[in-house]
């Protein structure tokens, strides 16, 4: 994917985040943070059976964190929790393994814009935080 387009998508999601804010009728909330950097995220999610019908978030941190959160919520909203869990595995697996080509993320829509973050090891954990937090939220719920 064109790096300029990736940058535009990330900037767009950091400045006009989708699904920003806490859901008033959430069925679960979960927080994640990195003490060292001060990064903090709070997700609120709403389930209907095994479907994730709505997701909201609040963050404190960088544009990368905000964009990753926004892109993740767009990806996850409306999906079966199994598909969401598989997407989380795919994205976090991609960040950890530099041998995986960026094209593999294309199936996750605009999430692929985050692929370039892998070149910045110090920033990978910013991008990963929302996804790890959502994984925790799914694990805490018994399906």
């Amino acid at each position, binding site marked *: 994917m064109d790096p300029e387009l990736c940058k535009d998508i990330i900037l767009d999601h950091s*400045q006009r985040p989708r699904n920003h804010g806490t859901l008033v009728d959430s069925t679960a909330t979960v927080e994640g943070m990195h003490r060292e*950097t001060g990064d903090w995220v709070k997700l609120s999610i709403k389930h209907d059976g095994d479907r994730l019908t709505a997701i909201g978030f609040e963050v404190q941190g960088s*544009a990368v964190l905000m964009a990753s959160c926004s892109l993740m919520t767009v990806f996850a909203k409306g999906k079966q929790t199994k598909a969401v869990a598989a997407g989380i595995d795919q994205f976090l697996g991609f960040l950890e393994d530099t041998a995986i080509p960026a094209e593999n993320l294309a199936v996750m829509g605009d999430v692929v814009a985050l692929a370039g973050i892998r070149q910045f090891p110090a920033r990978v954990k910013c991008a990963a935080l929302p996804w790890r937090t959502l994984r925790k939220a799914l694990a805490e719920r018994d399906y």
Partner: protein
Amino acid sequence: MKPLDIESIRSDFPILQQRVGDRPLIYFDNAASTQKPEPVIASIDHYYRAQHANIHRGVHHLSQVATEAYEAARTTVAGFINAASTHEVVVTKGATESINLVAASWGDAHLGPGDEVLISTLEHHANIVPWQMICERKGARLRVIPIDDAGEILLDEYTKLLSEKTKIVAIAYVSNSLGTVNPVETMIEQAHARGVPVLLDAAQAAPHLPIDVQALDCDFLVFSGHKVFGPTGIGILYGKESLLNAMQPYQGGGDMIEKVTFANTTFRRAPERFEAGTPPIAEAIGLAEAIKYMQRVGHTALQAWEADILHYATERIQEISGIQIYGQAQRKVGVLSFTLENVHPQDIGTALDLDGIAIRTGHHCTMPLWQRFGLDGSNRASFAFYNTRAEVDVFIESLARIQKMFA
């Protein structure tokens, strides 16, 4: 005054010739660690090729050569800080270990329940945590001298905090996050008037200011090799000889003993008493070369050059809207700490890195200082005498683009 020949100086630092991606490296992270000139690298290379053996032990030729080189390095360090004697110069693995040594050894003997250790708001974690640990163990209390919005220590508050409970004052000579040069002369005078010893954390002062422990009359002073253009893995603890010899060893082992039996061990005097085991010999030799390099550049020329770079960067950065500078002390060296409205430091750090510019972002190991300003951290550009106005120009252009991108 001998002017500073910047082209010649820059050519002495091999790492400054490299590129990051397709951009020349601009290294503005000198407060975290400085780069090494060729003579330092060559001295370490030569040591391992031609001089290496363990010191203070063998009767053989190489051991003599290594011992002489190591002790000559100690003499160079003593001259650098104007110590009265080489017995006052202890080699450690860094400024952090030097402070831990004093906190553990001196602190264990002198601190008790109700006693107080005085530090300031702008300390590096290395001059907070060791004191917290010993205070916890001894039932003593850590007191903190506040600073004002400019980042200067409030001397009146310091005077009020000094009391009969105060057992030691431990303060930074220069703040690593703000660049403030603290009024250590006055602070030492006031502490001594009450018979209280003072430790100076000179880790950020040593690369920028001439240090004279006798004129300062400080009781302890610490700094790190890697922040004065020398190797990593070495630091210095200066202590007045009478204080050091009255202190118990920090670690036990070889080289620090007079006589060992299974019933009892007697210890050597300072500095050997605090240098258990094989010390960082190559690093000491490299540190001495770094000091000689700084001395050849000359402190007057170095200070004038750095003051110009800091002044120029401070002026130019204010052209960018949304910039807030932290640390506006009257006396300041080496550091430009700032925030940019609506842009997170981590994003600035990454964006500058794409242009080949290295700065530090985050808390810079001074979390309580940033809590004082209601922040998690800042962006910190920190300078050395090998930086130039042209580099500052590139940095400002890059920052202006980042500001527009996120605006």
